[in-house]
Structures are given as C-alpha cells and as structure tokens.
C-alpha cells in the first residue's frame, strides 16, 4: 500500500449504512492522506455515492466514525462539514438552475461570509466590501476552472454540459476547501475533456495543495490520476492499493467481469445474459 506524503486528512472507521433491510455500505474503513488523489471505484450500485453522502454529512452513518482534519464529523451538519473544509460535486449535476454561474459560485462561498440580516439590510461598509470580494473571488475561480467570461452572467441551466460540470467544481472550490470530493466528474465527457480534467485535478493538488477524493467509472482517468484506489462492491471494500495492485487483484476483476468459470458457462449456455457492466 502506498502512503501519501502526509498524515490522513480524512478517515472512515467501520462506516456502515443500512436503509431498511438493505445494507448499502458495510464496515468500510479507509484513509485519505493529505495532498493525495484517491479514488473509489466499483460497479454500479456498489454504495460509492452513499459512502460519499456519509462523508459529507448528507447521511448519518448507521455505525462507524468519520474523522476529518483532526475532528470527528460523524453526523455533523453538511453545511458545517463544508465550513470545515470539505467540498463536493454531485453525480447528477445539482447546480442552482436559475442562478447565474457567478451567483452559483457566490453561494459556494456562503460559509466564508459573515454578513447578517441587519448588516445586509443597512448595507454596512463591511458587508459591501465582503460582497465585492466574494464576487471578485467568484470571477477568479470561474476563470481558473476554464469557464469563458461570456458565460459568467448566464443562467447555469443554460450552460453547456461541460461548463456545468466545470461550474460545479468552481462552486466547490470557491470556499477554499482542503478536501475536494468529486462524484463521477467525467461522466458524459469525451476522452479529450476527460484528459483535460485529469490534468486539472493534478494542478489543483500541486498549485492549491488540495486533497482529492473521487468516484469514477472511467478507468483511464482512475488509473492515470490516482495514487491510491479503494474498490467497493455490494457495499463492502473488496480491495485497495495502488492502481497496479488493484488492476491485477483477482476479486476486482471478478467484481467487474464475473467469475471466470461462470462466465464461460454462461457464454456457452446463452448469449443473452449480459455480464456486469463497467469498463475495465
């Protein structure tokens, strides 16, 4: 197992989530070292997004503990976890549709702002200053994420798909997080765009000192960018290690392609049964 260049920024201990009778995530323990890029992979329905939702406070783990930046954040409110320095994007883009790109990124800085009700009504000097700073920062962040200035005032619902993906990252980055969680950031992107995003993730780590945790299906991206990979299947951690170790792990191959013997038997019997999906 390769160690990152620092201590663990985020750690999950025996995290479990049960929905009714369904165990979505079972007893997962893992660590994200500071300034590293770590991936979680697994077939559809493996519990990756549920796991993400527990880390960011949207779900409270049924059992287990999440520690972030030296603090126990299990069951902490999502907006406070965000304030602690953990920002995320969503698998299905969840922008504030009728707000402009700029406003979306300004909302992202909400946790860093101090303006209150009366200060906002009276527009006290410090509120006006804060407002200008936040807008300035939003513009910088949008440009940094590669969104053209002509799109800043566009309603986010009207942006192109690629720009919406970039805007989600910009919105998360605006709060200066320590850890960025990306839930399938390259979904729906073509190979060139995916490659550009891979480069962008490295830049984020090197220029901004960010730690990145991503869920990803595109193996090209995962193998190219990750230092460490955790594989989930049916809610359980079935393997972890460097890309090389994971690629050759028998259980991982089995999870993605089915058992060798079974597969041959199936192929012989009928061709209609599709194998487990997911590219390797």
């Amino acid at each position, binding site marked *: 197992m390769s160690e990152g260049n620092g201590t663990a920024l985020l750690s999950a201990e025996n995290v479990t989530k049960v929905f009714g009778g369904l165990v979505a995530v079972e007893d997962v323990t893992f660590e994200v070292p500071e300034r590293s890029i770590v991936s979680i992979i697994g077939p559809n329905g493996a519990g990756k997004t549920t796991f993400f939702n527990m880390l*960011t*406070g*949207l779900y409270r783990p049924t059992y287990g503990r999440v520690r972030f930046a030296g603090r126990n954040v299990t069951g902490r*409110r*999502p*907006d*406070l976890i*965000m*304030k602690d320095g953990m*920002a*995320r994007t*969503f*698998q*299905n*883009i*969840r*922008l*504030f*549709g*009728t*707000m402009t790109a700029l*406003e979306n990124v*300004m*909302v*992202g*800085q*909400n*946790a*860093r*702002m101090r*303006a209150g*009700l009366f200060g*906002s*009504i*009276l*527009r006290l000097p410090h*509120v006006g200053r*804060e*407002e200008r700073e*936040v807008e300035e920062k939003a513009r910088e962040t949008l440009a940094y994420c590669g969104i053209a200035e002509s799109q800043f005032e566009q*309603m986010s*619902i*009207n942006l*192109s*798909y690629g720009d*919406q993906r970039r805007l989600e990252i910009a*919105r*998360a980055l605006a*709060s200066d997080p320590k850890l960025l969680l990306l839930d399938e950031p390259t*979904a*729906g992107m073509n190979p060139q765009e995916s490659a550009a995003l891979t480069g962008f993730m490295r830049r984020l780590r090197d220029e901004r000192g960010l730690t990145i945790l991503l869920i990803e299906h595109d193996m090209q991206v995962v193998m190219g960018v990750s230092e460490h990979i955790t594989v989930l299947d049916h809610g359980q951690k079935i393997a972890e290690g460097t890309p090389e170790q994971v690629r050759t792990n028998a259980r991982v191959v089995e999870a993605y392609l089915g058992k060798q013997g079974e597969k041959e038997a199936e192929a012989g019997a009928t061709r209609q049964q599709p194998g487990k999906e997911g590219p390797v």
Partner: protein
Amino acid sequence: MTKTAAALRRPGVKTDTRTLVALAAGLVVTLWMADQIEMDLFMAFVLWVLVAVRTIFHESKAALLGTLVALAVWAVVLPFFQDAGGGFLEDATQALALTVMALGLNIIVGFAGLLDLGYVAFYALGALTAGWFMSGFASSAGGGEGFSLLVGEPASNLPGIHFNFLMVILIAVVVTTIAGMLIGLPTLRLRGDYIAIVTLAFGEIVGRLVINGDEIVIGGQKLTNGRQGITPVDKIDLPGLAPFTGLELRPWYWVALALVAVVLFVNYRLRDSRLGRAWIALREDEVAAASMGVPLVKTKLLAYGTGAAFGGIAGVFLGSYLNTVNADQFQFSFSIFILAMVILGGLGSIEGVILGAIVLSFINFNLIPDVFNDYPSKVGLDFDLTELSFGIFGFLLVIMMVLRPEGLIPERRRKLELTEGVGSGATTGVGGAGETSYEARA
C-alpha cells in the same frame, strides 16, 4: 408586425403596430376604469403616459429610471387629486397595506420557496398587537385609569393601554418574528406540500384562537374580543402631525405608502445579499445548498421571520385604519387572497408582487362590490357578484397559469426558466430533471 413598421423601428424603440394598438386600447380601458373607481382622470392619464413611455423605450435605462422616479412622485401626489374622504383613497390605502403583506409573503414563498398557506396568522397577530396596545381593551390597565406612552390627547386620558403607533409596530415585529420562527420549526424537516399543510394548520390555529380568545382569561384580562372585535382602536398619532381621523384619509395613505417604501427597500437589499442568494439556492435545490455551506435551519427561519414581520406591520396598520380587530378578518381565504397576489404578480418578483397586490385589491374592494356587482341582475340572474369573489379570483389564476405562468412582471430567473431554459434542448435541468438528462448522456 408590418414591414413599414419594422423599417420605421429605431433600435431600442418599440413602435410596431401591435404595441401602438395595445397602448391605444390601454388608454381607453384606463380612463374608463378610472372613471368607474372614482380615480382622478388626469392622474389616470399620467399613469398611462408613464406606462407608454416605458413600453416604447423599453431598452433605455434612462427611460426606466425616469418613469420609476415619476411613478414614485405620482404615488405621493395622488391624494391631492382625490376626495379626502372618498372611496378611492379608502381602497388605495388598504391596497397599500396589503402590498406590504404580499411583499412579506413573497420572501417566504417567492424567495425561499416555502409554500405558506397560513399567512393570515401574522396579520392576526399584528392586528391583535394593535388591539392590545392601542385601545381601551385592557380596561383594567393602570388601575382603570389607563396607561399611555408617547401619545397625545384623547387617547392618553382613556382607560386601556395606549402606546405610540411606531412602538406598537416594533412590538408587532418582535411578536410576529417569533411566531414566524415558531411556525418554521415544525416545517424544517418537511418539504413541499407538507410545509403547506403545517402552515395551513398554523393559520387556522391562530384564527380559532382569536375567535375563542374571549373565553381565555389571563389575570382578569381576556385575550381577544372574539367575533365582537376590539373596537375602537386608536388612530395613528405621530409627533408633529395632527391626529388622524376617519374623514381625512390622505395621511393614512401616506403612512401606508411610507410602509411600502420601507418594506420595498428591505426586500431589495435582502434579495441582493448573502441571505437572498441563500434563499434562492434553497428554493432551487435544498441538498446542494446544504452541501455548499448554506445552513438550512437558520436560512429557513430567517425567511419565515422576516416575512412574518411584514405581515405584522401591515396588521398593526390595518387594525388602526379599520378601527377594529375581530375574528372574522382572519380567515383562511385571506391567506389565499395574499398568495394569489404573489402568484398573479410573479413569484419572487418584487415589482410584480406590488402590481399583483394592487390589482387584486382593487378588484376585491372596488370592482367587484361597486362596479360590477349588479351586472348579473341586469341580465336577469338572481345573485350579486360579491358572492362569487373567490370564484373570480380562481378564474383569474387559471387564466394566468395558462397565458402567463410566470406572472404579470416575472422575476428575471423564472422568466428565463419558463421561456428560454426548459425546452431549448441544450440544457440539463436541476434535481430530478438533471438525473434524467444525465442518464441520457451517460
């Protein structure tokens, strides 16, 4: 649009045939309507000129600014052209008070997207505050001698509690803000329709409380006067001004106008602030908002609190203006009436809500009872139009939803969403819609 008209068109100036015909028709309707509701014809004409200028020079910032300033001046000088005790000023004053409420409800429903069907509760609490602190209701106060604070003659000598109008407004703001947050608490874990049901119940609870309050006695003092109502309520008495009377309505109008101005200012400031953005983010996607650092509880409670405070302010004013606080004023239909103003004007649109409030108020207080009331009997039908008031409002809303779902003056966001956003094909929606488009692309 004919070719000649298009050729004549200069950039930013709208003079195509359709616009001109609409404006001409508008003039006829405006003058006829003004005549019916006893509005000064000259002032009605000026109003039409302002609208026409704005329509023709629709791209000019200077024209917009000019018409807005002119409109403000118009609103201030309007009473000088009207009969001081006449029906028009009476209705106009009430319309302005209801505008304050509509602007308050707009914060809750339009900005934060929390459907509130019990807004009447805040009107009731505001009016009750006026009943408690501006009348002879608490007859035992001060040992039967009465207790007064910063009010002038007759009130200061009467039994009961008599506080200055502005102080009562402050008290009402505190009371209704707390009530707003209390109603907010049980709805925090709820979404959409369920919020509507809880707020509906809250409105009913407060309504019942006012009806039955005459049997709730605390320390020898009844809570309310039930259906009989607390009356009379002190007239507004402001330092430096002659005491207000029921015969001279101009000062009432100006006070109401000033309240609208203050509330308007607060609305604009809040909309363009950190809090306003948080409200809209909440309306768009609660989960994403929370993940982006918007504290859900605090943001929702602030929406309820500020929205409720405006209801309370208007309640105090109406208590004093109508000279009575009785249970029949606080019915469920009132909540719907205010909500209809917000929807008709344009959810979330400050300008639209003002227009919606004024239009619906005049339809309710003037057009239906005074102008069109006997029309059914003229064609041989045996009923008054007032009996159909809410049917008419419902019909208007249906027409609006079909022809112009975004409201009379739509909020910029909703306009884009309804006319350009959805259906342009190149978009992915938010929330549920986003999921499907993602599936389609993945």
